């Protein structure tokens, strides 16, 4: 198999082994990832212990005592259509003060005015697609294509908690202060991550998100 794509497929998705206890499902796009994640979360195949969605893939960890790569691949590939209803997640509204350091730069990059950048960001309907980078850091899809800008050439050493930022096709709220290369549009006081809460992460995969401009 060396040099060729591994695994089995159903014409749309490919399932490849990822070590002895996981498979990686390659999907067409974020929509399919969310759909398959929703469907499997709702009705997990035998032996599945964890689902980890990402941009184009879904990692499915399993207990090798209860299933095998082959059996699990069969179970997964049978889901040839995604359960869209399973994706109707709850909606969270986050109030943002659009005072980010990179607003002018983003305006310049996109050829829009600062006001238009803010309006387009505020008007988007977003879905938390997956988490990564840091605990509670959710990649939100649905960003207006006019706002797709590359991340900064040199990341900041410190981005404050609550920073609302964009990079590529995603927007996000920094859950904690950390280094970061995303473009800062503003900030929110809405706590998206709190380990003391029963649900520490406000923006779990599938959650719909809206941003509204903070009133003074």
């Amino acid at each position, binding site marked *: *198999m060396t*040099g060729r794509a591994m695994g089995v497929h159903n014409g749309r998705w490919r399932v490849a082994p*990822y*070590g002895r206890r996981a498979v990686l499902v390659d999907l067409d796009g974020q929509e399919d990832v969310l759909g398959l994640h929703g469907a499997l979360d709702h009705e997990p195949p035998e032996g599945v212990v964890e689902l980890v969605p*990402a941009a184009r893939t879904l990692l499915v960890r399993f207990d090798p005592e209860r299933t095998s790569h082959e059996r699990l691949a069969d179970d997964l590939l049978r889901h040839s259509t995604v359960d869209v209803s399973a994706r109707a997640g709850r909606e969270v509204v986050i109030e943002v003060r659009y005072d980010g350091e990179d607003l002018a730069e983003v305006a310049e990059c996109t050829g829009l005015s600062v006001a238009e950048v803010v309006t387009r960001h505020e008007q988007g309907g977003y879905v938390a697609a997956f988490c990564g980078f840091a605990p509670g850091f959710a990649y939100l899809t649905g960003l207006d294509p006019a706002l797709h800008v590359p991340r900064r050439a040199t990341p900041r050493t410190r981005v404050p908690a609550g920073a609302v930022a964009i990079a590529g096709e995603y927007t996000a709220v920094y859950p904690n202060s950390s280094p970061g290369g995303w473009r800062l549009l503003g900030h929110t006081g809405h706590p998206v991550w709190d380990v003391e809460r029963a649900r520490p992460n406000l923006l779990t995969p599938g959650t719909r998100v809206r941003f509204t401009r903070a009133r003074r």
Partner: protein
Amino acid sequence: MTAKLEVLKPGPFTTVQDLGRPGLAAIGVGRSGAADRGALRLANRLVGNPEGHAALESTLGGLALRASETVTVAVTGAPCPITAGGRAAGPNAPIVLRPGDGLEIGTPERGLRCYVAVRGGLDVAPVLGARATDTLGKLGPPPLVAGTTLPVGQVTLGPPTVDLAPRPGLPAEPCLRITPGPRLDWFTADALATLVSRPYTVTSDVDRVGVRLTGPPLARAREGELPPEACVPGALQVPPSGTPILFLADHPVTGGYPVIGVVGEEDLDLAAQLRPGIPVRFALSRLTA
């Protein structure tokens, strides 16, 4: 009265670890926990604890503790010189410390990490159900500093039942078994053969996140980067330089470099003992055990 362990010297890097936070990757939280899980489990069993109790993970020794009350401890993992109450003591065995007794862990002759369990476990505050320090996700207690006081818990299974658990030594040139994929198609046809052909060398870039290796580069068949995708411990991620990074306990939940192979769970404890400068080999293994 609650017993305490006082940290006199933390050594180069010592953290509190248990078996981590499994099942939370979808919210961006990795499993973390002891890098050498077998050594943590053994240390706990030796002192009559449940296997997942919180203990200390010491990197390259240099650790000195003092007990406030009579406590039973055990040291496992990389073999290192041990002094307890001023007298030499052995690894992989329960050791009783009297009130005021010190426990000193020297530098391991081989391997990287040793574990100190105390009967009752370390009763630090749990975060998301675990006491492990996730160095990348910044969860759990901070790394030890001199003066840190660690409360000892009360929950045990029963009295220690063995005097010694004989353990094989660590190999001078460890061999880690891998299964190929999932991104073999990102590499040239001979990359996998290259990976298993000659030993790699462990660089000084070693921490709980991973081990950067140097050796025969693995040539890419494709340019560019992958969109972020989930990782597992043991994944061999290959950045554009072509030399792999082996992910350990605190690996990022998602990564953007293609993974050529995965070190099996059965060899991860050995991987956690990889020390800068030593050679390491990879061998192909079957997907089903």
